[in-house]
């Protein structure tokens, strides 16, 4: 542990030997892509999607498509209804009485967003499926559409679904503790700001997809449904499919295989995937579907989409005494499983961040609109909560005249105050926020930056900006007892097997998708068992070979999977000891004919990583362009298993946070049409957008909440860099009296604000 080992998964992935879903065919078959290929080859699906944001479906005519060359099946809602398939899972953890409309697999009666699946064409080749899809004739009677959460919650907005208590509002929840109004009445300073965390797209390198086939007749209790699904949650997906298809879980085998990035978006299962799996069951042949890049902007969940109207009360000495206001969160047209949880369990409760704030009164409003469903996206509520708080803290610094770092220092929860229960009911395990901030400030060197500010202005006319942000990141959540098919309170499982040859296999229920779990978990087991790392093989992502797990999301795998592996390794060592077998463990296994143990994580408490980030930017007043000169990242994620992997997470997350801060936005026109549905229009950061050096440093306060002392940290860069960057740009614009601009900070937005201030 603690060694910067290079990722063992990379050689295969970097030399094109990865096995992504599009790389595989069912055993014994080949793609049916050529004329005269043998019957039984893999068929290919194309999804017919709604071209409009909101409409009644007047008619669907699939006769032309069914008659087209190479077409094997065309499915619509009627076929799924007849088989009783659906609805999609959604709305876990929503408050009682919330509006959670049934989410159909294929649209029936109405379409709710531009891109919603309406029909599925299955043909011999992908091209033939695409050709035939053009022949599916759907008549839409268009309805007015609404796409932003504020507009959708406003009276008179077009209403998507019947049966809600308040139009498109799914629920209103109040997060209250202490006497916020009294604190505001007493406050020397009150800062208030409307802030947007705009809707953004996950943009995974590998788009979504699925390949499904049947062996035997699983519906008759014979054989199985085989599903190759790039997912973060193999066991959870099996459970969802079981419920939707009416098959027992043991008749479904889910394999994730290599997954080319997910960032939360491959946590849910999607209607297009379910339709493809149903098609494979129906036609009895393998069916594959691979999402196109443009399609992903219409069909994959988006992240964020919140508007916060928040107010912070600050005493004369800079103490933050209360938060109040309202946050409207867009959910899209239907609720995905964790949409309510990101708002109610993450964004809201994390608003106080690492500060000693004793009163809060915030209303959290979930709103439906004519847009793709919102899903988890790198941080899922954490970056938004931190962004809103850290922007307000900077505004409070301006109001009080205190240095932004000093204001944070005066409000941090002290290193001696842990475990600390926040006013929102979270129990922070450990931390030393002062130390992290101080380390960052030392590295940043704000004194030297003042010299640089003058030099830059003279040299290029650019305005230098320096911004900081501190944050707390919850990680390692284990969903509630019995959720998604898990054993109550058992958590995730790991099986550690030492063969008589000394080879060790670690099978774990947390399913990685690019994070480096094969490397990290091998290091962990090697250390615990006292064997060379090369002797350890890590297995996950397959419901046959991996024991139960909730999957990988919410920075949970080191905490939950790591704890399960720790316990399984301890059990193996105990077994050797009980048998009086000699250590090291390889010798014991040789004598005993092998050793194996399965253990569960037992739902360890969440961990709370923390960090302080500094950003330096240069703003060109002639164009409004923002250049990121430096990002200084100081993270505290407790005990580190592999610092190289931690750094990799920080780098990637910084790129994604920088993207939200500067350029990314999923926007719609008045009719609900997306303005960007390709990478020619949707702006992700390029390598050249990143600062030349990524300055990533670690401090460590071990977590007492799990036996390894680790804390989840997969989102930290996204959480820290977004407010730090916006704070830096506002610092650069201080001469113009500009105090807030909403993300993304495009050149036009910055230039226009400068012009208005001149």
């Amino acid at each position, binding site marked *: 542990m603690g060694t910067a080992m290079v990722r063992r998964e990379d050689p295969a992935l970097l030399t094109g030997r990865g096995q992504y879903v599009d790389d595989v065919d069912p055993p014994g078959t080949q793609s049916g892509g050529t004329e005269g290929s043998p019957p039984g080859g893999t068929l290919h699906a194309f999804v017919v999607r709604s071209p409009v944001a909101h409409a009644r479906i007047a008619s669907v005519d699939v006769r032309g498509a069914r008659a087209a060359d190479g077409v094997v099946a065309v499915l619509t809602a009627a076929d799924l209804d007849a088989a009783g398939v659906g609805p999609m899972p959604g709305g876990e953890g929503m408050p009682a009485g919330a509006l959670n409309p049934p989410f159909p697999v294929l649209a029936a009666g109405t379409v709710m967003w531009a891109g919603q699946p309406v029909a599925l064409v299955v043909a011999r080749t992908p091209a033939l499926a695409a050709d035939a899809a053009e022949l599916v004739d759907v008549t839409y009677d268009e309805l007015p559409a609404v796409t932003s959460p504020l507009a959708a919650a406003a009276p008179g907005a077009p209403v998507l679904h019947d049966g809600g208590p308040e139009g498109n509002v799914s629920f209103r929840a109040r997060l209250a503790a202490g006497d916020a109004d009294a604190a505001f009445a007493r406050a020397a300073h009150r800062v208030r700001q409307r802030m947007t965390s705009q809707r953004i797209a996950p943009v995974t390198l590998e788009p979504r997809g699925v390949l499904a086939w049947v062996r035997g007749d699983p519906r008759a209790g014979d054989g199985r449904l085989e599903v190759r699904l790039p997912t973060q949650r193999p066991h959870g997906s099996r459970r969802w499919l079981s419920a939707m298809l009416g098959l027992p879980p043991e008749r479904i085998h889910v394999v994730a295989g290599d997954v080319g990035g997910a960032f939360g978006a491959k946590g849910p299962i999607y209607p297009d995937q379910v339709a493809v799996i149903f098609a494979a069951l129906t036609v009895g042949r393998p069916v594959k579907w691979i999402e196109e890049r443009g399609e992903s902007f219409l069909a994959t969940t988006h992240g964020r989409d919140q508007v916060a109207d928040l107010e912070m009360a600050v005493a004369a000495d800079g103490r933050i005494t209360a938060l109040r206001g309202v946050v409207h969160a867009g959910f899209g047209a239907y609720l995905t499983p964790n949409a309510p949880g990101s708002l109610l369990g993450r964004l809201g409760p994390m608003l106080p961040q690492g500060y000693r704030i004793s009163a809060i009164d915030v209303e959290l409003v979930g709103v439906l609109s004519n847009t793709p469903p919102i899903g988890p996206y790198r941080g899922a509520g954490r970056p938004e909560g931190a962004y809103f708080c850290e922007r307000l803290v900077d505004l409070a610094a301006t109001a009080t005249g205190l240095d932004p770092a000093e204001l944070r220092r005066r409000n941090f929860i002290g290193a001696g105050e842990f475990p600390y229960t926040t006013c929102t009911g979270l129990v922070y395990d450990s931390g030393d926020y002062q130390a992290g901030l101080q380390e960052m400030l030392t590295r940043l060197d704000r004194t030297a930056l003042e010299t640089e500010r003058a030099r830059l202005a003279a040299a290029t006319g650019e305005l230098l900006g320096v911004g900081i942000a501190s944050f707390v990141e919850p990680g390692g959540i284990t969903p509630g007892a019995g959720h998604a098919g898990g054993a109550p309170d058992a958590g995730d499982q790991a099986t550690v097997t030492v063969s008589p040859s000394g080879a060790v296999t670690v099978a774990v229920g947390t399913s990685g998708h690019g994070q480096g779990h094969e490397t990290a978990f091998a290091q962990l087991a090697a250390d615990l068992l006292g064997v060379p790392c090369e002797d350890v093989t890590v297995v996950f992502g397959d419901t046959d070979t991996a024991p139960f797990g909730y999957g990988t999301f919410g920075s949970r795998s080191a905490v939950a999977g790591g704890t399960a592996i720790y316990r399984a390794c301890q059990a193996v060592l105990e077994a050797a000891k009980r048998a009086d077998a000699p250590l090291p463990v390889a010798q014991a296994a040789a004598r005993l004919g092998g050793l194996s143990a399965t253990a569960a994580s037992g739902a360890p408490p969440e961990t709370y990583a923390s960090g302080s980030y500094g950003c330096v930017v240069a703003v060109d007043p002639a164009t409004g362009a923002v250049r990121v000169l430096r990002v200084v990242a100081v993270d505290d994620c407790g005990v580190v298993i592999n610092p190289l992997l931690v750094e990799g997470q920080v780098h990637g997350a910084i790129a994604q946070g920088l993207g939200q801060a500067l350029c990314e936005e999923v926007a719609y026109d008045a009719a609900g049409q997306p*303005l960007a549905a390709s990478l020619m229009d949707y702006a992700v950061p390029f390598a050249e957008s990143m600062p030349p050096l990524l300055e990533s440093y670690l401090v460590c306060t071990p977590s007492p909440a799990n036996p390894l002392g680790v804390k989840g940290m997969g989102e930290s860069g996204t959480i820290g860099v977004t407010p730090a960057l916006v704070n830096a740009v506002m610092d650069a614009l201080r001469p113009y009296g500009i105090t807030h601009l909403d993300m993304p900070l495009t050149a036009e937005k910055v230039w226009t604000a400068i012009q208005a201030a001149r």
Partner: protein
Amino acid sequence: MFPADFAYARAGSLAGALAQLDAAATAGDNVKVLAGGQSLLPMMKLRLATPATLLDIGDLAELKDIAADGGQLRIGALATYRDLQRDPRITAGFPAIADALTVLADPQVRARGTVGGALAHGDPAADLPPVLLALNARVTIASRAGTRTVALEDFLRGVFSTDLADDELVTAVTVPAAPAGQAYEKFAHPASHLPLAGACTVIEVQGKAITGTRVAVTGIAPRAFRIDLPQRDLASRSVSALRAELADGDSAGGPELDAMLAGALEAAMAAAGAEPLADQHASGPFRVHLAAVMARRALARALSRADAPAGADE
């Protein structure tokens, strides 16, 4: 990303290609010429273009030559961006073209994309057209009926629209000798990295006087276009006065020059009845402003090159 069905033909000679185009035009067949394919093939994969036949002219070696004739350069239509980048006659004699090539797309696209293809495509947000416009380039066009030459100014029409008829093929671009004072500046679209606004400036200097200025811009209107007003405005300045004004850069001299250039751009667009391009990243008026800033910066760089001894850059 699967194109609709299409037929594929490979031209063996220029005459053969022109005969095929002629026959297709007569029959009303939808034939598209495939050169580097860097714009056409993505459009086909998105089914935004659905030609019945692709006529691949990649074998026509006679269209790949870059030939110098005095200071004039004749660039074959099939010369790739990379061919241009590696040609010392371009890098030494036409630094504005070199500027554009370094910020144009990526190495893969530059290895395949061709000069003729780029012009025939008529993309309103492309890097080379403003440079070639400012350099007074002419386009050579062949058909079965013969060959004609047209000024690039008259060749470009509008969004994906040019003077090229269905039976015609761009065979070459001719660039006359140009002064050393030339440069291209670009503000890249954050997603596509095509120019949100790009400007090329060519400045002629004799002694202390500015004797000519040509400015052409891209990315802001349905086609790249030239403006002539700055020449009149700038000619009233001496070289040293302009240099002093430009040296103040964005802090002092910028806004005044920017406003003058933006006014000229707006007037030219109004005269042509051209609506500014706009998308979620940049409105029309902002693109015009950006083009003015890029033109001013190109002017500063062109001026520094005009002063520099041959072969030396700033």
